[in-house]
């Protein structure tokens, strides 16, 4: 099924608070998207006055796999180990929607033509909603990258935004997927291992607290997200139930010859309108609640990953210390042990600083930037990653919860009005 999306800012379901206007030197958006048989093509438009780019305004076409490639490139880059890498957008999945449309097409002869048309309309609206969401997810990913002072300067990012040709990034084949899957398992096993290591003491209360917090938070938000999804599904089912009800009432109305005729017809109309309202409630809950929870579930996972990397660095540092001691007692290869230990120490400190309010004022002095223009500061001067995560989260929840409440009120008021009008009409008749 073909679908085009003209993504303007106003109709984008943005459940995360990314402020693209924050730094106008690099603005990225997805200006268009086309859905073909089994892939979606996004048109990524960039506006920038930065010197790296050949033009001030340009567009490229990218597919989902290329986004994933970009994300993985960031994750694998040691330089960004101390940063929260924005979570990759989920793969566009129209499978469920397509299946439902197909089933509808195969036909259930017991439903009338009107019912069929309405159900088709519902499914098409669902398809469109999924489409809009996937565009929004991909856009938010890019916009967070563009807003991050360090991540926006990445070479791969520039290539992604500017290179006119296909990046020739094929989707991961089965082996690579499996590899990725195994890597995740290894990572969690490793994490479990290093935390249980007797010698490994968390030196910093802040991180201890953050780790406990994030572990619990991530589990609970994942739970909440799943259950919010189910609530949304139930609302959708309810809305769909009104379709056959409305149709049956309509037939009853046309059959009747007595006073019930108008009553039934009015009821049929009422349920048709209620259906639309109920449907809107479902989709608003989806956007404002489910999607937001889902995004922060992923973001909290990214934050967890950062903490893991730091812990890993700490473990390495500890090991390096031990190795150095051993080398010193044996008086063999002390040099290598020393330099290794230095390395581990620096890495660990870098990650720690980057994650929370830095202890190294040196890098934060802009004069030093000027002195080392080519060097990309690994510790962003004033955006401690974990603090950032918190403030993003709080403001996003605030915005979405307010909007959710306002929309629920709007729909409830509309339903009440509709019901009251119908009641007046019904009571007014003999």
């Amino acid at each position, binding site marked *: 099924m073909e679908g085009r999306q003209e993504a303007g800012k106003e109709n984008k379901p943005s459940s995360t608070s990314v402020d693209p206007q924050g730094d106008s030197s690099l603005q990225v958006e997805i200006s268009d998207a086309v859905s073909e048989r089994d892939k979606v093509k996004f048109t990524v438009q960039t506006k920038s006055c930065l010197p790296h780019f050949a033009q001030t305004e340009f567009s490229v076409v990218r597919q989902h796999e290329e986004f994933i490639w970009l994300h993985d490139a960031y994750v694998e880059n040691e330089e960004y180990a101390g940063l929260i890498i924005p979570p990759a957008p989920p793969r566009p999945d129209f499978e469920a929607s397509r299946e439902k449309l197909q089933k509808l097409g195969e036909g259930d002869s017991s439903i009338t033509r009107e019912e069929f048309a309405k159900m088709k309309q519902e499914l098409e609206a669902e398809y469109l909603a999924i489409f809009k969401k996937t565009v929004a997810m991909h856009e938010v990913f890019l916009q967070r990258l563009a807003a991050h002072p360090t991540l926006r300067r990445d070479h791969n990012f520039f290539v992604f935004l500017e290179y006119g040709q296909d990046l020739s990034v094929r989707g991961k084949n089965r082996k690579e997927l499996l590899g990725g899957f195994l890597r995740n398992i290894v990572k969690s096993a490793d994490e479990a291992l290093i935390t249980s290591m007797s010698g490994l003491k968390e030196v910093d209360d802040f991180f201890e607290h953050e780790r406990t*917090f994030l572990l*619990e*938070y991530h589990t*609970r*938000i994942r*739970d*909440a997200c799943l*259950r*919010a999804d*189910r*609530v949304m*599904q*139930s*609302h959708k*089912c*309810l809305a769909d*139930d*009104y379709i*056959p*009800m409305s*149709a*049956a*009432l309509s*037939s*009853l109305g046309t*059959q009747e010859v*007595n*006073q*019930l005729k108008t*009553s039934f017809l009015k*009821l049929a109309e*009422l349920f048709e309108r209620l259906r639309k309202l109920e449907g809107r409630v479902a989709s608003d809950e989806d956007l404002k609640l489910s999607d937001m929870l889902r995004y922060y579930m992923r973001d909290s996972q990214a934050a967890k990953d950062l903490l893991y990397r730091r812990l890993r660095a700490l473990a390495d540092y500890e090991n390096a210390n031990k190795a150095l001691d051993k080398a010193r007692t044996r008086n063999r290869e002390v040099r290598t042990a020393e330099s290794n230990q230095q390395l581990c120490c620096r890495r660990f400190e870098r990650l720690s600083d980057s994650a929370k309010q830095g202890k190294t004022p040196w890098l934060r002095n802009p004069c030093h930037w000027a002195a080392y223009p080519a060097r990309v500061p690994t510790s962003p001067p004033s955006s401690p990653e974990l603090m950032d995560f*918190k403030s993003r*989260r*709080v403001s996003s*929840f*605030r915005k979405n*919860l*307010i909007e*959710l*409440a*306002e929309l*629920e*009120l709007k729909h*409830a*008021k509309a*339903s*009440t009005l509709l*019901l*009251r009008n*119908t*009641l007046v009409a*019904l*009571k007014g008749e003999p």
Partner: protein
Amino acid sequence: MAAEREPPPLGDGKPTDFEELEDGEDLFTSTVSTLESSPSSPEPASLPAEDVSTNSNGRKPAEVVLDDDREDLFAEATEEVSLDSPEREPILSSEPSPAVTPVTPTTLIAPRMESKSISAPVIFDRSREEIEEEANGDVFDIEIGVSDPEKVGDGMNAYMAYRVTTKTSLSMFSKSEFSVKRRFSDFLGLHSKLASKYLHVGYIVPPAPEKSIVGMTKVKVGKEDSSSTEFVEKRRAALERYLQRTVKHPTLLQDPDLRQFLESSELPRAVNTQALSGAGILRMVNKAADAVNKMTIKMNESDAWFEEKQQQFENLDQQLRKLHASVEALVCHRKELSANTAAFAKSAAMLGNSEDHTALSRALSQLAEVEEKIDQLHQEQAFADFYMFSELLSDYIRLIAAVKWEAKVQQGERDFEQISKTIRKEVGRFEAKRVKDFKTVIIKYLESLVQTQQQLIKYWEAFLPEAKAIA
């Protein structure tokens, strides 16, 4: 009250002996003028006189036959009803006699009813007037309540006893307020008797609630969970609606069996009650329909009316079934929504606990509370969906099955104008009642939906400032 009346002479059962009948050859038309207040049908084209005489003469033997075979007809719903089967004969031969006066059927019932049947005709007359005076329609001063379900006995012999309370100012009852204890099989027994007396005569006898082996077994075994309490409540409500419909019927209200059911403290155990489940009636309808369709039917204008009515009821039945099925789906999904909302409320509360930003944490807890209240709301709405809407629809579907039976019987029995008139009147009454019933329930249901929305508004309005307070 009954004792005060002098029993009229009960002759050899000839219709002409009854006081309220004028002497005349045209038995049926005179009866028609006495009994029918507003005949809506044209005069019958022909009236086979020989049937009358056969009846008067052959009445007594027919009585006995009628009794047993009638029971059989209703007892074995799966039995083949063919044109030549013995079951059909009682219908053919007995039709006119009960049709003469509605009272007559009582004389054909088992002997123990004799004493009552003697006095019945006069009382019938008086209370009928009383009833017709009360209202031109369906409002009689009689109210029935079914309450206090109580488990009696243990194990598989246990049963639920319900209190049936009657409040009335009608003179046919000895007291103005009284109650008795009845069990489910008593209700089925009552229906069986009423159906056997009145169905084939053209009256729409309201169907009794469905039997449920699973539901009852759970109750018997003593399962004290919500599904068995729900089941008992559902049944109680259904029994109440059943009795209310039955007493609203002016003719059935006269019936001594009904009065005995409502009044007497002891009721003989009804046997053979498996016959009249709704499903059983449907099966019967279908078999009879097949039988009737095999007959060649002469078309005349009264046939046209019945054809039309039958078609109308067919359509109505079909549409009501569809609506009922979709309302049942609605109830089911609303229950699911309620459960899912409750689960979400819990996880939102947990998330709120985890959240270390105070204002956000509080807002999330508030959200959890709102969702919990909404879940309650959904539960109540599902309840309303069910009791108001769904049950009404299923009652009407079963009523219509009974009406269709009427129409099909008529198609075969169109010679018997009495039935025809009765049926037309019944159908007219049914239609009027249906309209009123539906409208009342629909309005109530919509009002419940409005209530729900109002509550939702309240909850979200309370939540909004909390969300805005997140700093």
